[in-house]
């Protein structure tokens, strides 16, 4: 149900472009106005969300400790999984963001012969996610060749690596293929694993279909329905230099690709995609486990009503004296 709504939503986005580039002749809207609006929505939206999170304080130091604490000098502490220093926290966060440390730990637990559990290392989600995020990043970086003149040498290097297969002309970029494969896997597991299907919302399927649309249109554009790359770059450079122009004859597929990318970025700040920024602020991951060593202050700490010792002694003085327990007032 959620998947169908999400799929239809992406199809509608494509149809809008077809209508816009066809009869309606809305090239300026699709090629200039919407990209600008998207940029504004994305930057302001993300900044707004992050600032809003940042406004909520972190009253308590609550890291999830995933290894040995720092205690006695002869016991080796786990510096990355249970960091006690800022350096350790940076390391932990680095592992989390770059290599998905927590997901790497993933196990699957299945019941055998009635009541025997087997907990096994489950690497597919970790591999799929890692492949997806890294290939997406490389594809994104590769696109900077369209935003920059001259193209920096680092980009040439990345392209050289990415195109190492050297098949056909234009050469195949592995990252695009991996991206499409990985995002399809992430979609597939949402259908295939009953528990994941049960928890999936429209907002889980929508970005997946959108990204599949982006990857497909990109691949089509590069290898099959060729577009005029020089004109495409002209359009983009026009946007960047605030002298927007609409070169003729770039091809519909380019506008579909661009519009879906805009949809993704405009949707970003309103959605779970904000996990990209949120992970850095997650209090169970970005704090050192040092609250017995170093005082952590809660900015909204307030005095509370307590039952004092004096009140307690009032209640039990007789019994305490009989039991020969010392008291303050005889």
């Amino acid at each position, binding site marked *: 149900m959620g998947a169908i709504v999400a799929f239809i939503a992406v199809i509608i986005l494509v149809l809008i472009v077809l209508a816009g580039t066809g009869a309606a002749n809305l090239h300026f809207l699709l090629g200039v106005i919407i990209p600008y609006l998207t940029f504004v929505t994305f930057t302001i939206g993300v900044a707004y969300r992050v600032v809003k999170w940042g406004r909520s304080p972190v009253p308590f130091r609550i890291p999830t400790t995933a290894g040995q604490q720092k*205690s006695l000098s002869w016991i080796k502490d786990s510096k990355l999984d249970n960091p006690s220093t800022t350096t350790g926290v940076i390391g932990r966060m680095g592992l989390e963001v770059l290599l998905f440390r927590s997901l790497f730990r993933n196990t699957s637990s299945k019941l055998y012969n009635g009541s025997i559990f087997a907990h096994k290392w489950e690497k597919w989600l970790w591999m799929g996610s890692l492949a997806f995020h890294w290939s997406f990043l490389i594809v994104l970086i590769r696109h900077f060749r369209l935003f920059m003149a001259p193209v920096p040498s680092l980009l040439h290097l990345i392209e050289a690596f990415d195109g190492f297969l050297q098949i056909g002309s234009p050469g195949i970029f592995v990252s695009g293929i991996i991206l499409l494969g990985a995002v399809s896997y992430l979609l597939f597991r949402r259908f295939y694993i009953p528990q994941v299907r049960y928890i999936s*919302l*429209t907002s889980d399927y929508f970005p997946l279909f959108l990204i599949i649309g982006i990857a497909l249109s990109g691949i089509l554009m590069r290898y099959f329905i060729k577009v005029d790359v020089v004109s495409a770059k002209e359009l983009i450079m026009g946007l960047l230099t605030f002298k927007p122009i609409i070169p003729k004859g770039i091809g519909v597929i380019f506008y579909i690709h661009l519009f879906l990318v805009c949809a993704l970025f405009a949707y970003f700040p309103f959605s779970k995609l904000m996990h990209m920024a949120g992970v850095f602020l997650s209090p169970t991951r970005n704090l050192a486990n040092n*609250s017995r060593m170093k005082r952590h202050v809660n900015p909204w700490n307030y005095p509370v009503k307590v039952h004092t010792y004096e009140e307690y002694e009032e209640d039990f003085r007789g019994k305490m004296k009989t*039991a020969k327990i010392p008291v303050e007032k005889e």
Partner: protein
Amino acid sequence: MANIKLPKPEELSKIDHKPPQKRWMDTPAEFKQGMYCYGAKGKNLSAVDFPNARDWSPDDKDWKLPENWKEIVLEGMKERLGKYRSFHIFMDICVRCGACADKCHFFLGGGDPKNMPVLRAELLRSIYRKYFTASGKMLGKVAGARELTEDVLKELWYYYYQCTECRRCSLFCPYGIDQAEITMIGRELLNLLGLNTDWISGPVANCYMKGNHLGLEPHAIKNNIDFMVDDIETITGIKIEPSFNRKGAEILFVTPSGDLFGDPGIYTCMGYLMLFHELGLDYTWSTYASEGGNFGFFTSMEMAKRLNSKIYAEAKRLGVKWILGGECGHMWRIINQYMDTWNGPADFLEEPVSPITGTRFENAKATKMVHIIEFVADLIKHGKLKFDPGRNDQFKVTFHDSCNTARGMGIFEEPRYIIKNVCNNFYEMPENTIRERTFCCGSGSGLNAGENMELRMRGGLPRANAVRYVHERHGVNLLANVCAIDRAALPALMDYWVPGVKVAGVHELLGNALIMKGEKERTTDLRGDALPGKEGNEDA
């Protein structure tokens, strides 16, 4: 409701993990006997000034909610979104990847899809979306949002008291989303309406008025310890004289009151008493701060702080130098992650130094509170204690890491080091079930009542399973731990799933093995059972 039947293990272990066809939002919670606790009593709620104090039962149709209950919950959510970055972020960034789903012991042992941590969180997230996000307000169900109705509130209550706040899900979550944090805040919201359980609110009221969960009055604490002292004398021939509320002692000792009452907690307590006597430690018990645990933590942060305040207050009144804490789970999460922030700074205390070895406990220099397991590991390393591990040869031991000391602190090596010094036979459970990946006893966070036994047995199944593995493979017959709730909850779990396995605190094993100056030849262990090779010598 007095006779809630617990199904047989064979029946209970038939678990279907496949979710139903019908969508979860369209499926209201079905209250299943044996899966939830009795409602709180009015007198216990009013003892600590909790709102909407009244006698109430979850079985009733009418939960006697205040007129404006919805407003109270939504206002409470708004306040907490602004107070806790954790809550705010955890409401926003979940991608529903499902990595947490089969990490929860309640889902594994019960199969109810709403016990998948992600879905338990979605119960609250769906309300958050409806009232606090633009997409939820506009798109409703399509955006995963839903109205807060009385049925939804009941569902929240049912499932937020089916979470032991063990944090296992947060270990596996790629963003560290912690259901314990969400459960804690969810329970705070429920407590704004007086929706607590009898098993939690009773101990909270006791602890507030009398100093401990069990409601032991000062003379009763002394009596209980005197009984243990007598038993120790019978077993070792040594007379111990502990002190209570003594001013000027060097160290204040605080342990969960579960150690003062009932089997097998008292054997752990006997271990403490023997150890301190053997060291000649200058320490005192307190009858006012006679609770290390904190059931307030299972109601609201404020209540937890109110109960916790007694520890520093008493340390100050007695003029001790530092505080030593006994074996407990959530107590140590609180001391490690909350106490100083709530009730510190403890600038009236000194940085803890072991009077026996001179070791400075740098890791506790702000809170000034040392875990007894750290304290003892240091003593053993310095050769200050003599053991006869043969006196534990009747046991084949495995060790259960408590959730809170595992994932809210990280104390893994110290207890193992002690056990290996005091026992000859130690076997680890499978690696995916220990240390940071440990499985909960199924009864934490105030769920160790009697009326919810089915829930407890289901939740404890993954833990019991791992014990059964070492029981069958190595003949393990003793499950050691460092937590009072474990000692209260695991015996029932073992009897149900793995009969023949006993439960003991690490200090019980230490007490058995500890060679004390001037002791007579022991013929029994602390439980009064004959030692190996001494079976004929028992006193009648």
